[in-house]
């Protein structure tokens, strides 16, 4: 009951230090959203709207940049070129070499979609990283998972792909390692790929919420104002930290995808 009162007070903005309502700690409830509107029985919420918006931004930007490419590029085309060349040179080439260039459209869309989805936590009004809902991460991981298994089957053949999991190791330990390799490919790789992105975004948003709510809660004509200033400083600090984390997580996700692709495309050695 007390929680309900605090939440209600926080919702109306009336919850401050010494007002008797206690600190309305952010939690899982901040990741559940009301239905904004309904389309044909589909309840659209804020994270879904953000996901659609990010997808549209990526599509429209690259469409505008490369629909009619010119030899002497204009501003948008230059920006688009810089963007995809950064993905090519920092993510694809180091892992896949030149043969990976054909995955440039996939990796670029993936990288910029994830970056935008993450950065939405720092945009006023939107203020939510859609990737902190695991429902958005799982389909991405599923697509990538199916894709690199398919590439493995295509490159090495059905049995060849599974045979390529057998590591080059001394015979006495080989049987013990096969189980580890199977667990790595089947369970750990997709799990860590998804959980890393989701957990970072979830924790980042929660951290930012904790300090934002604390600043509001502590602000008032009392000693709390001093602590509110400290909390506000932390808001700015975490904001900058999250800016870095958002970019880094998109980079790590795409880099890992390209290493998994490289693993699938690597010529069979056994």
């Amino acid at each position, binding site marked *: 009951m007390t929680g309900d009162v605090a939440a209600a007070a926080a919702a109306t903005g009336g919850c401050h230090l010494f007002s008797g309502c206690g600190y309305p700690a952010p939690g899982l409830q901040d990741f559940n959203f009301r239905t904004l509107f309904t389309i044909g029985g589909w309840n659209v919420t804020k994270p879904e709207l953000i996901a659609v918006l990010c997808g549209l931004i990526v599509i429209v930007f690259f469409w505008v940049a490369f629909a009619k*490419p010119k*030899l002497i*590029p204009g501003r948008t085309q230059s920006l688009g*070129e810089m963007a*995809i*060349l950064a993905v090519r040179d920092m993510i694809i*080439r*180091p*892992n*896949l*070499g030149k043969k990976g260039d054909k995955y440039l459209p996939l990796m670029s869309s993936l990288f910029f979609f994830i970056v935008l989805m993450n950065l939405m936590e720092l945009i006023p009004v939107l203020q939510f990283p859609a990737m902190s809902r695991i429902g958005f991460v799982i389909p991405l991981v599923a697509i990538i998972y199916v894709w690199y298994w398919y590439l493995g089957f295509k490159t090495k053949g059905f049995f060849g792909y599974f045979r390529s999991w057998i*590591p080059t*190791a001394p015979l006495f*330990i080989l049987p*013990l*390692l096969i*189980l*580890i*390799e*199977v*667990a*790595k490919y089947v*369970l*750990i*790789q997709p799990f*860590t790929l998804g959980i890393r992105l989701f957990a970072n975004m979830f924790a980042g948003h929660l951290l930012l919420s904790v300090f934002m709510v604390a600043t509001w809660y502590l602000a008032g004509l009392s000693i709390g104002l001093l602590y509110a200033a400290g909390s506000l400083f932390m808001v700015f600090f975490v904001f900058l930290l999250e800016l870095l984390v958002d970019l880094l997580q998109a980079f*790590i996700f795409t*880099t*890992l995808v390209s*290493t998994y692709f*490289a*693993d699938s495309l*690597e010529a069979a050695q056994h």
Partner: protein
Amino acid sequence: MSADDSPRGPAGAPAPRRTIASRGRKTWASRWNGGQPDGAAAGPGVGSEAFSYIAAGLVAYGGIGWLVAHFTHIEIFLPIGMLVGVAISLWWVVYKYGRKSD
């Protein structure tokens, strides 16, 4: 894509093309990979790969330990399985990545 992103000399003249062979198979991509040939599992992926192995060892042998513990009702098999898995994975990570590549 830029129209021409090939390397250029000081006066804008095309620089002599350096083939992979002329550089002893060390492309800039391979330098990122810590000197290993292109396609070798190294660079930013190594840390993640090592973590994957350790987690896989924990899950695989922890799973076996759990099964044994479940059927024998001797619970110590679960932590034993996990420890054995981590030990094997660690050995494998050190064996695979710990050696110097040329």
